[in-house]
């Protein structure tokens, strides 16, 4: 018997037009943190979906604790003490935290000794206890819809722990978290390992791997490249193995040359659906040739600012000027026309028509204009030609080229398609909300390069990001937001990472 708790041998999984996992063999030791690394679409999620019973492999064998198994369902996986924290949470928004956690393993009480019912109250207590034990405090009666992303993630983790999983898989758990939350989560993960659990961690962030992982497998285009001992491998080597070339972590950029004012936001106020002011009295300007980044912890109003500028939400107060024109009450279309590109935070919900093909999606911001259409008639050829160009230019990988249904593309490639579409609009103002979320480092490098390129061509760029590194890396000017208010606006050279962090936490004001 080997000392591996999990062994996947020669796993192959095919999807139409693509081999997602190609003869992959890995072994994971009990009590280690094992990382999976690879570009978008390399097959990480697929491999783990196989381990957690979501997919069945076309070929290959799986051994758990030395025994050969065929994991036919998530339930089966759970019985083998395998639990997966999915990147896209699988939560019922209308349900409370407890209801979500107990779904499938409901504790039953009996009413009058006769009528069985779901014993929510007991469960609440148990969940509360569990959450305290692992340092994941939650209010079990709260509805998922009312939770922040990181809270939702806690629920996902609790779900797995509630089922007494021994092998925990995390698929890009940090992509949606703030630096503080990441810090916290990594702590939790280490804690779990220390309590004897085995962890598999998928992430694009090498420093996280470096920090917590023991070993790391690198996948590329479905193939296993290597399994590395993290302690003895440099971040640069990991990156190189993964992308197949050398990666620059620090974006090189020439000093900014601010030209005319492009965007001017004056005393902007935005209310959410409940009439609560989530953006308060925010003013700033962005110039041609400037990357203006809004730094802040999630849910502090930064997305609403971007939405208000793009016209997705109404401003309840204040004014927005684009190139000197008041666009506060313009329609979305008019704003696009006046020169705004926008990469939304939730790409599947706002950015894409998942059932349309790639070329239609890439052309979906220009379809009503020449040459994509003429007098209301579409020119399909133009869509295809443009699509093909973008696929080449932005290295968008998919099974069937421009005809691929976008739904079947990997998350990172979906993101690339949006980026291609928005940059190609050549708008004077480009709004990037979390542009690199879930994107592999090679692609991140590219995106950063492109942003800087655009800046150098005289575009004004508004970057909203939760990743401080990214902001420090590319921004010319940083505005730090806390609780809907801009705490500090200053050039990036004049701020240190620490300072920004303090403003973000509301610990420091101007």
């Amino acid at each position, binding site marked *: 018997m080997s000392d591996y708790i999990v062994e996947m041998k020669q796993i192959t999984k095919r999807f139409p037009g693509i081999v997602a996992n190609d003869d992959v063999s890995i072994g994971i030791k009990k009590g280690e943190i094992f990382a999976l690394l690879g570009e978008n679409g390399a097959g990480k999620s697929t491999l783990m979906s196989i381990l957690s019973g979501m997919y069945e492999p076309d070929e290959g064998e799986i051994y758990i604790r030395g025994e050969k198994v065929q994991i036919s*369902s998530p339930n089966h996986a759970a019985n083998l003490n395998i639990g997966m924290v999915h990147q*896209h949470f*699988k939560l019922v928004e*209308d349900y409370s935290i407890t209801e979500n956690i107990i*779904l499938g393993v*409901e504790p039953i009480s009996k009413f009058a000794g006769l*009528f*069985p*019912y779901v014993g929510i109250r007991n469960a609440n207590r148990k969940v509360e206890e569990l959450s305290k034990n692992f340092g994941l405090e939650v209010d079990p009666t709260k509805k998922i819809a009312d939770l922040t992303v990181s809270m939702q993630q806690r629920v996902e983790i609790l*779900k797995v722990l509630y089922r007494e999983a021994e092998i925990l898989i995390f698929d890009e758990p940090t992509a949606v978290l703030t630096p503080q939350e990441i810090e916290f989560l990594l702590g939790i993960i280490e804690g779990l390992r220390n309590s004897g659990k085995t962890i598999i961690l998928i992430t694009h962030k090498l420093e996280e791997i470096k920090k917590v992982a023991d070993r790391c497998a690198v996948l590329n285009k479905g193939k296993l490249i290597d399994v590395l001992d993290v302690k003895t491998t440099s971040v640069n080597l990991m990156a190189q193995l993964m992308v197949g070339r050398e990666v620059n972590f620090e974006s090189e950029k020439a000093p900014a040359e601010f030209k005319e004012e492009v965007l001017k936001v004056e005393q902007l106020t935005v209310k959410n659906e409940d009439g609560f002011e989530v953006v308060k009295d925010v003013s700033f300007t962005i110039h041609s040739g400037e990357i203006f980044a809004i730094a802040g912890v999630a849910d502090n109003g930064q997305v609403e600012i971007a939405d208000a500028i793009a016209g997705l939400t109404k401003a309840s107060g204040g004014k927005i000027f684009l190139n000197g024109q008041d666009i506060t009450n313009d329609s979305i279309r008019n704003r696009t026309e006046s020169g705004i590109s926008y990469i939304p935070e939730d790409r599947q919900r706002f950015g894409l028509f998942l059932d349309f093909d790639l070329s239609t999606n890439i052309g979906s911001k220009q379809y009503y204009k020449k040459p994509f259409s003429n007098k209301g008639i579409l020119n399909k050829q133009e869509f295809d030609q443009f699509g093909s160009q973008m696929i080449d230019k932005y290295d968008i990988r998919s099974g069937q080229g421009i005809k691929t249904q976008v739904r079947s593309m990997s998350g990172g490639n979906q993101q690339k398609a949006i980026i291609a579409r928005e940059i190609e609009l050549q708008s004077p103002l480009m709004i990037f909300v979390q542009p690199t979320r879930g994107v592999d480092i090679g692609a991140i490098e590219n995106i950063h390069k492109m942003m800087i390129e655009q800046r150098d061509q005289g575009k004004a760029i508004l970057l909203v990001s939760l990743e401080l590194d990214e902001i420090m890396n590319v921004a010319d000017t940083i505005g730090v937001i806390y609780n809907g208010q801009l705490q500090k606006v200053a050039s990036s050279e004049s701020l240190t990472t620490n300072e920004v962090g303090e403003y973000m936490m509301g610990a420091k004001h101007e």
Partner: protein
Amino acid sequence: MDTIIIDGLSFALPLFIMAIGGIYSEKSGVTNLALEGFQGFGAFIGAMSAVLIANASGAAIEDMFYVALLFAMIGGMGFSMIHAVLSIKFKANQVISGVVINILALALTTFLTTQINALVFGAASDKFRLGVSERFTIDGLANIPVIGAVFTDVYPFEVIIIVIAIFAWYVLYKTKFGLRLRASGENPQSVDAAGVNVYKIRFSAVLISGMLSGLAGMCFAYSISAQFSSGIYMGYGFLAIAALIFGNWRILPTLAACLLFGFAKSGGMFIAQAMALPSSFTDLFMILPYVLTLLLLIFFSKSNRAPRALGEIYDKGKR
């Protein structure tokens, strides 16, 4: 005045139980336009069983009331299997499946009714004649002003419906089956990830909707004409769908919607009679329930929301 309540209730309750069936199905994520077909087919099986059993056993058809109800439920459930298999196993479009089932139910039941009558009774009659249902009045309570009407001339099925409705409420909101069912309509992936078989849940939900619709169809058959014929397809299945959407896919508000339909309907008839207008005007009063519904929806519809995964074909591979 009493008639409004008495007739209103005897119409609203079958509608309600059918709508509950719809809620089960739709809450589990399966669009169900087939209620109309289920209720008709259920009533067909119920009436046919009653007639055949009475014939075979020599019992009086009047005594077959509960037999009819029982078999109607079984029949509705059996027929709903088509919708379940088509829309869950064969991943058919749920809308087309529902519509087809309605077409099929009407065609099959009219065809089979004459065929079976010819075969068994040697007379190709197009209906199964049932005995009328007894109605009872609870003496003490019936004397209370206004409310008393609720306890007057009650069909036994009204009581049965209320009992089943309470049970249905309990199952949907209190048991683990209900918890899983509602989750299947919101986010089937989460149910699947929790190791619960979404297909099975949805399958049972559709069967329940068939069962309850069958019951409703039988009740309509009894309360309107004490027979089964193709006249049973009066569009009440669609009305039940309207009621459950009006009720925002929740049982209690749906009850309110059904009562509104029932009382507005009997009230419209009553007003038409009471005002003694020429008969053409009766038609105008008949629009009362529908206009009222639209008006009320204008005020109450803002926050209505269908189950998130309603109508989505659940495919494990798809995330």
